[in-house]
């Protein structure tokens, strides 16, 4: 069909020069604000601003990274090399690239980095104020292309602050901000860019932004990797799901961040030019976040690990996969997401361990793991999707996961009985004689919501008084521990790199808050274990790239299995799709050079790899 007449009417922006990207942020409330260094200014970030105009020292891709330009998914961006620590991790030195210029022609130097750190350390309300003021003792620029950090305490992961997974500490243009009195009320319109694009125009209502390639794009870190192809990049946000579907088919979008599973299945079937991450089912891209059932360990109901295991064994992986993703889930039985390079580092090596893993229910010993769940799910969806469903075993594993616990109600009941629970009719009673009931908090929408509903239902069908409770503010509630069981994720990783400190460091018992108090990110279950602290401290003592990191990671996985503090279920799969109508060369499972999710800043490398379709526009 013809796109004539439907928005955007892009006479000025020929499609062979323009890429249109969907930004999942809602309406941008402060559209004319481009200062990224004021927290909560309500501005857009993944509207192209942080994707195209910012930069920092390193990028770590959630997927493999572009071959040749990255190593172990790590890109040196403004930095010329990887981080250099001293032996006790109290100092870090960085070499910077030369020949990089801000879009207003000023050269980027070590002074900008020093300014970034010092200014934010001194200004409460900037995003890295807490991080810098707590950690950095001194930052200096021995020469214009070297930065030297002295830290207050040893920290082997300090470079993470300057390593982009989604965002990181973006470097400020010193020559702009040093003249601003109060940087928190400075809107930076138009922004000075250190990326290959500058602002062309934007919607005063905050729903689209147009960026134009810099003349001197070569003088940017990204330009030094390869030329970004599109002359214009348009970011559009706040487009409802149905709207997105129509717009991508009408040719008014090239990249969609996310869709419903059903929407994706239908659009890829109807439009051969549209692709997902996997060439066939399940199409979705697995995010380096792991969706799980999180128990509140400060609630007496969940303090016995046998109860937690019992709850895990009651679940039916196939039902969860079907209900949440219609089968398009990538399962994980262990506390590491089955994404990026993790299957290589964790899932595959631990497969045998899992197959032989045995638990003692108190009555019997069972081997709960089922390595064939993926195949079963593939078989379940094959009637509907036919050839689109892979049949090759490796492909099935990559797409559907390495396996999960087999639903085992008798074992679960034995565990509960061992924990002192009794069954009264079809209702389990706690040792204190009260019925075992709790609410399962689920977010308002999306697959996680669907997942939570089926989980609660499965438990309820097995005599647990679990009810799904939908809440708009799950984030706030999990932070203050105001929930019993929560379907969310407490694990996030770099994705492309095996290091687990991204989430694990915050699991240290020193950070566990008192009930009712605010818990810092990720250890939402408030799990405390001296053995865990020990692993965390060991990881802190080694370098990011130290091979021992994987070993300690395995230790963590095993400890987690023993305790089952939360039930890992599946990767947070995102239905990112791209259209090959005007542009091709998008990343996918076979050519997994980048994460296709549009709001993560790493996605910027995609623009160097795509090319316009001949004669399409």
């Amino acid at each position, binding site marked *: 069909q013809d796109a004539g007449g439907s928005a955007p009417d892009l006479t000025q922006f020929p499609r062979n020069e323009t890429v249109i990207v969907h930004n999942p942020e809602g309406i941008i409330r402060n559209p004319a604000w481009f200062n990224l260094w004021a927290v909560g200014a309500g501005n857009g970030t993944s509207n192209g601003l942080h994707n195209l105009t910012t930069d920092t020292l390193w990028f770590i891709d959630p997927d493999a990274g572009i071959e040749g330009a990255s190593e172990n998914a790590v890109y040196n961006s403004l930095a010329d090399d990887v981080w250099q620590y001293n032996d006790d991790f109290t100092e870090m030195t960085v070499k910077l690239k030369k020949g990089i210029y801000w879009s207003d022609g000023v050269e980027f130097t070590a002074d900008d980095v020093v300014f970034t750190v010092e200014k934010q350390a001194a200004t409460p309300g900037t995003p890295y104020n807490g991080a810098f003021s707590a950690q950095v003792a001194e930052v200096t620029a021995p020469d214009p292309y070297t930065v030297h950090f002295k830290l207050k305490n040893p920290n082997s992961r300090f470079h993470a602050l300057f390593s982009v997974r989604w965002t990181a500490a973006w470097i400020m243009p010193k020559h702009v901000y040093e003249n601003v009195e109060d940087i928190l009320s400075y809107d930076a319109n138009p922004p000075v860019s250190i990326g290959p694009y500058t602002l062309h125009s934007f919607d005063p209502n905050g729903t689209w932004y147009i960026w134009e390639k810099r003349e001197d794009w070569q003088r940017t870190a990204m330009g030094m990797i390869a030329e970004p192809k599109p002359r214009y990049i348009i970011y559009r946000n706040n487009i409802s799901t*149905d709207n997105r579907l129509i717009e991508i088919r009408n040719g008014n979008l090239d990249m969609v961040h996310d*869709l419903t599973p*059903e929407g994706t299945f*239908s659009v890829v079937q109807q439009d051969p030019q549209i692709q997902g991450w996997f060439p066939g089912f399940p199409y979705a891209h697995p995010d380096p976040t792991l969706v799980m059932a999180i128990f509140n360990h400060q609630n007496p109901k969940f303090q016995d690990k046998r109860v937690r295991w019992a709850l895990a064994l009651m679940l039916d992986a196939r039902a969860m996969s079907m*209900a949440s993703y*219609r089968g398009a889930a990538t399962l994980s039985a262990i506390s590491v997401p089955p994404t990026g390079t993790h299957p290589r580092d964790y899932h595959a090596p631990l497969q045998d361990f899992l197959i032989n893993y045995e638990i003692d229910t108190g009555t019997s010993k069972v081997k709960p793991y089922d390595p064939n769940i993926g195949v079963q799910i593939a078989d379940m969806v094959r009637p509907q999707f036919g050839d689109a469903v892979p049949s090759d075993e490796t492909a099935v594993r990559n797409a559907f996961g390495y396996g999960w616990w087999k639903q085992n109600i008798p074992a679960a009941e034995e565990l509960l009985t061992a924990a002192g629970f009794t069954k009264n009719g079809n209702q389990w009673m706690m040792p204190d004689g009260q019925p075992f009931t709790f609410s399962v908090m689920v977010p308002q929408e999306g697959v996680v*919501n669907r997942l939570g509903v*089926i989980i609660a239902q499965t438990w309820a069908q097995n005599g647990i008084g679990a009810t799904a*409770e939908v809440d*708009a503010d799950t984030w706030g509630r999990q932070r203050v521990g105001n929930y019993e069981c929560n379907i969310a994720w407490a694990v996030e990783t770099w994705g492309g790199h095996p290091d687990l400190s991204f989430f694990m460091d915050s699991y240290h018992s020193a950070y566990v808050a008192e009930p009712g108090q605010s818990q810092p990110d990720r250890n939402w279950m408030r799990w405390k274990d001296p053995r865990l602290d020990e692993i965390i401290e060991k990881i802190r003592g080694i370098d990011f790239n130290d091979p021992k990191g994987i070993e300690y990671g395995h230790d963590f996985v095993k400890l987690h299995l023993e305790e089952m503090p939360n039930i890992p279920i599946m990767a947070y799969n995102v239905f990112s799709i791209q259209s090959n109508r005007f542009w091709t060369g998008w990343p996918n499972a076979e050519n997994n050079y980048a994460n296709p999710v549009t709001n993560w800043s790493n996605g910027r490398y995609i623009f160097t790899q795509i090319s316009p379709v001949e004669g399409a526009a």
Partner: protein
Amino acid sequence: MFAVFRDLIRYNIEFTIGLILVGIMVIFAGLSFFSPIDPSLIYMAIPDQPPSAQYWFGTNSRGQDLFWQLSAAFKNSLTFGITVAVLSRIISITVGLAAGYIGGWVDRVLMFVNDIFVAVPIFPILVLFYFVLRNNMDSFTMALILACFGWPFDARLIRSVALGLKHREFTRHAVFAGMSTRRVLMEEHLPYVMPIVFATFMNNMLWSIGMEVTLAVLGFTNINNPTIGTVLYWANSHSAMVVGVWWWIVIPVILIVMTFIGLFLLAMSMNEYIDPRSRLRRMGA
């Protein structure tokens, strides 16, 4: 009474159709009491089955038999809508008639309160209640809140009619016939506003059900409680229309349209019954 009913059916095809439509819907919603399956359970049937002999209304993508799902949803939503409409009708009729008839400071105070309720935006309040009550925010609580906000529009409308009635001679006549204020309002003035009451009853039901749908679509209700709103919420979050599971949306829409056309026809014919003069008008066809 029976004769009235018989004549309504005999002479008023609208009444008959309306009665049949509403009757069907009442029976349909009532069936949910005999539902063989718990409508909140998912994956109890094969998903995405189009309507068939086995599944009259098909199944949805959550593996629910839509017949029973919708039966429960209509029971809940209609009960909800009727609760809101009845409660807010009671308030708006009382306030409207009293303010119009009694006048003076009673009128001023009532209209002052009325204005506040009209002016205060309901959406943030509903969301707040939702945030505070969370699981305890059942549909009855929500109905109470909506009822509190559903009356002022209509109260004003009714008041403006009542103001005119106040000065009519028959009102004074009724007073001298010893009728109490309550009787004057309920028996003399109420019939006059009945057409408005019927009209606003439906509008109010639609408004409250629509409000429920909006809140559900935005996720500010308990989406596991089957209602028209949550049915649509789920259909939408499964892209039902796009994917071709049209029956998930089309059937509830047909049912709700049937319900309200039925109510509309009933209201129309009831107006005729209440106002003997308009009966005559239609006889002049």
